[in-house]
């Protein structure tokens, strides 16, 4: 495992953690508020979709920088 790969991996994990934490704050789930809307979607829905897409994109990046990928366990 090289140090650079490790630091990329840790950055990815930190970004995913931050996204998850933000999800449960009033930034994403303000009680009783559904504006501003985007393309007709209520606020919590479009921010939720963005966060989900963000997590999947981070998952993709994580697979490219995961320290274990260099010693892949091919059978």
């Amino acid at each position, binding site marked *: 495992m090289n140090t650079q790969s490790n630091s990329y991996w840790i950055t990815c*994990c930190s970004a*995913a953690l931050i996204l*998850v934490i933000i*999800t*449960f704050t009033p930034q*994403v*789930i*303000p*009680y*009783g*508020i*559904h504006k501003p*809307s985007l*393309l*007709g*979607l*209520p*606020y*919590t*829905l479009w921010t*939720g*979709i963005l*966060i*989900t*897409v*963000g*997590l*999947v994109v*981070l*998952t*993709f990046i*994580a*697979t490219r920088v*995961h320290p*274990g*990928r260099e010693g*892949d*366990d*091919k*059978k």
Partner: protein
Amino acid sequence: MNVWLIILGIVYVSVLLSLALYSKRRTKSADDYMMAGSNIGLILGFMTFAATLFSTFTLMGMPDFFRHHGIAAWIFLAVSDGGMVFLIVWFGYHLRKKVAAKGYNGLAGLMHSCYENKWAGYVYFLGAFVFLIPYVAIQIRGVSIFLNVIFPELLPSWAWASMIVMVMLIYSEIGGLKGIMYADVMQGTILLITVWIIASNCVSFFGGVGEMFKQVETGNPALLSAPGPAGLFNVHFLVSSFLAILLIPVTQPQLATRLVVMRDLTATHRMAVAVGFFAIMIILPTVAIGMYGAVRYPDASTGDFLAQVLFFDQPAVIAAIAVIGLIAAALSTSDSQIFALGAEFRSILKGDEKKLMVKTRLAMVFFGVAALFFSILSSDQLVLLARVSFAGTSLMAPMIFAAILGSRPPGLELVVLTAAGLLLFIGSLFGLLPAVLTGLRIETFILLSLGLVAFFSMFYRRLAIGGGDRE
């Protein structure tokens, strides 16, 4: 409509049985049968994981959840699934590394091996059994109440449920895990197509997405934000649900096994990304179906709403596809769970391989029958019952993490406390204990407590015994 349903039904069951027989011909050993030869590529791995994860709970439960509790249901499931696929990248690597060192017949067997104590395997198996049977049951329940509403004169609910269990057991017993995986590819595809066609029809009814939400706002604006009309989606509920769903691939054997049987780590990682995209693709249309129900059938029962939106409001061919799609959704999850429970049962037994296989096959029949009885007795709150299943199995995560991450056997205290935690949670479900402790939902409190115990137990062992280094 009935003609379409009969034609599609015959085609569906024929393809299922053909796939099972095809798999049977290629099965050469018990490992092939139970672990699909442990050489699964990206496409098969991704489709089987997705079809196993997304089920009746998604196609029937989520629209009903959106209809009753509003759009924050997206945070409840989709964001949690986004976190889950990220966790797979990390956990998949460590699980596969441990399996390479210890071997794998099932998580219960792996716990036995890692803890060097058979009780670790027993506690895991019993926890999985207690919380997976209700999950299987709601798949069967969901489809049987739907079929009962659309064909009230034909068969009672329990008879539909019995037929579903019978079909599932027949093709699972014939084809083994590979047969189930082949079936999952077909069933996952049907599920995705069905849900998008019905959602498109729902949006067309309003004339567009914006107009749909405007009409929801006119009828019940509380549906458009957290915590929803009933106040369900508060931060406590969403966080505890996130943790429960996040840990599904760690604690539920049907998914953990799918991480193990992938060809290599690269395939496992790519599968995680694909499942993440699939999650978005499958949950997004359920929002539209739910909002359609909120406007047109706000006060209907679960069965009536689903029968209307999935069947009576659709053109004949689409309605027939929806029925097959629902059955496919239920079967693709139930078969994997029943099979996984059978594999877990086998992994805690020892003895002659042939006798073990006979016992395993009989155990699968028993699990199927147990799920059938539970499905007849359970309520129609599909998503909330599923959540109980996720929360229950998630309590075993600290015990599993300690086993997977440690290089020496973890302490037995973790096994004992996990068993106690499972009993406490069951006690709370029956109203014997409060649902909230120290301001936290009881399952979150127990999970965090077990997590702390696992951390300190591993830390202590590292200091006292010097065995805490990861392999």
